C-alpha cells in the first residue's frame, strides 16, 4: 500500500474503502466481461455476425486492459483482489454478459454487448464523480477507461440501428486512452 497516497485521498474527503469496493467490483466486471465476450465473439458468425466480430474483439481486449490497469490502483490504495475467483465473479459491478438463448441471433448478442458497455459507462461515471478534484490518479484512470467504454457503447449502439456512433474503428493499437497505464 502507498500510505501517503491513501492518506491524501482520505484527507480530500473520499471514502477510500467505498472507492476500493467500487474499483474491485469494476475490475471484476472487466475480467468477467473479457471471459463472456470471448464466447460472444466466437458466436458472431455468418454475414451479420462477421461484421460485428472485429469491434467485439477490440472491446474484449480493451476490457482486459482495463482490468490490468485497475489492479495497481487497488493495491496502491490498500485494497486487494479476492482470493477466490468465484467470489470475484459474483461481486461484479455488472451482470454476466452471457450468450443469449439463441446464439445465432446477432441482434440479441449486440443487445448483450451494449448493455454490458452501458453498465460500464455508468460505473466509471460514478467513480469519476466520486474522485473528481479529490483523487487525481484514480480520476485520470477512470476517465481513461470511461472514454473507451463510451466508444464501445457507441459502436454496438450503431450496429443496433440506434443512430450514428460518430466514431471509427481502432486503427492499429488498442486502448488509446488506457495504454499509458499499462506501460
Amino acid at each position: 500500500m502507498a500510505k501517503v497516497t491513501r492518506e491524501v485521498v482520505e484527507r480530500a474527503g473520499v471514502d477510500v474503502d467505498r472507492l476500493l469496493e467500487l474499483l474491485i467490483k469494476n475490475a471484476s466486471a472487466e475480467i468477467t466481461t473479457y471471459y463472456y465476450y470471448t464466447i460472444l465473439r466466437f458466436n458472431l458468425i455468418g454475414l451479420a455476425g462477421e461484421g460485428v466480430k472485429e469491434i467485439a474483439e477490440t472491446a474484449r481486449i480493451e476490457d482486459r486492459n482495463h482490468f490490468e490497469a485497475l489492479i495497481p490502483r487497488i493495491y496502491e490504495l490498500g485494497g486487494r483482489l479476492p482470493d477466490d475467483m468465484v467470489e470475484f465473479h459474483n461481486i461484479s459491478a455488472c451482470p454476466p454478459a452471457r450468450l443469449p438463448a439463441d446464439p445465432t441471433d446477432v441482434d440479441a448478442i449486440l443487445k448483450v454487448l451494449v448493455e454490458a458497455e452501458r453498465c460500464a459507462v455508468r460505473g466509471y461515471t460514478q467513480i469519476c464523480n466520486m474522485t473528481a478534484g479529490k483523487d487525481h490518479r484514480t480520476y485520470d484512470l477512470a476517465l481513461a477507461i470511461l472514454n473507451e467504454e463510451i466508444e464501445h457503447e457507441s459502436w454496438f449502439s450503431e450496429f443496433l440501428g440506434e443512430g450514428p456512433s460518430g466514431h471509427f474503428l481502432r486503427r492499429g493499437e488498442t486502448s488509446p486512452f488506457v495504454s499509458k497505464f499499462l506501460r
Partner: protein
Amino acid sequence: MRRFTVDELARYDGKDGRPAYIAYKGKVYDVSGSFLWRGGRHQALHAAGIDLTAALAGAPHREDLLDRVPVVGVIEQEEET
C-alpha cells in the same frame, strides 16, 4: 397493493437471504432478483430496505431501469406533525 411503512420496508434489506426491497417515488420495488442488488447492496453505495428517491437523483442512470423489476407495494408517507 400492499402498503409498507418505513419500518416494514427496512426489514427487506436483502441480507441473510431476506428479500431486497427499495422504495422510489412512493412505490416499493423488489430488487431481489437483480444481479446488481446481491446481498442487498448496490454498487457499494446503496442499501436495500430504504427509500432511494433522493439518492437516484445522483445516480448515473435514470429511473426507467426500475421498470425491469417488479412493484410489490407502495410506501406509506409519514404524517407531518
